[in-house]
């Protein structure tokens, strides 16, 4: 699946987009965040306050308990500030 990062999540993670294959057992957005945090200090830093980070699956907002099975694109970003 393709992961995208925006705004300060992107800056802290040091990457805008990547392809990943999470291991079996990573079934929800929250579990994906936990897995990402274990990939290195940049990701641990970017996701340190996981509760404030928003997610979208295939370009729709989702909660952290959303299942990721079948997702093609998952994005992580801070609360939006447009308008």
């Amino acid at each position, binding site marked *: 699946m393709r992961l995208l990062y925006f705004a300060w999540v992107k800056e802290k993670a040091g990457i805008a987009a990547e392809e990943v294959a999470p291991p079996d057992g990573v079934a929800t957005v929250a579990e994906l965040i936990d897995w990402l945090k274990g990939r290195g200090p940049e990701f641990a830093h970017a996701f340190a306050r996981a509760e404030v980070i928003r997610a979208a699956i295939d370009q729709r907002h989702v909660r952290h308990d959303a299942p990721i099975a079948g997702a093609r694109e998952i994005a992580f970003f801070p609360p939006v500030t*447009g308008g």
Partner: protein
Amino acid sequence: MIRVQREDFDVGAEIARIKARRSDIGAIVTFTGTVRDRDGAVAAMTLEHYPGMTEAELARVEAEACARFALQASLIVHRYGTLEPGDNIVLVATASEHREAAFEAARFLMDYLKTRAPFWKREDGPSGARWVEAEARDEAATARWSKEPAAKQP
């Protein structure tokens, strides 16, 4: 209609386009959001967005407004890129037979896009760059609509 663009927009031209070749509109409300300086703290503002989802989310918000209010036309234009204080950021225009639907729908569209459209503002100033933080009152403004009936108002 929704548009996501780097370029500026002309509110008068957009109103003329909405009214062109029709005579059934009695009310047009527009809202323009602009870059605000805070006592010299903001030299520039950069709007990042999520291409693809931005368009999808604005279209969903617009469809929801059309389902709730008796609109004859609606338009959302949102800019991205680097802007300066005083520059336009966003335009919402709503057209209806009577003013109530246009006023309410414009407010609804702004409240929803503030908390749903994937844009992020970064301010650049003398003390460096900072990401603008989301405000709880914006979430509260959006939540207000879920308590109200979704029936179409004339």
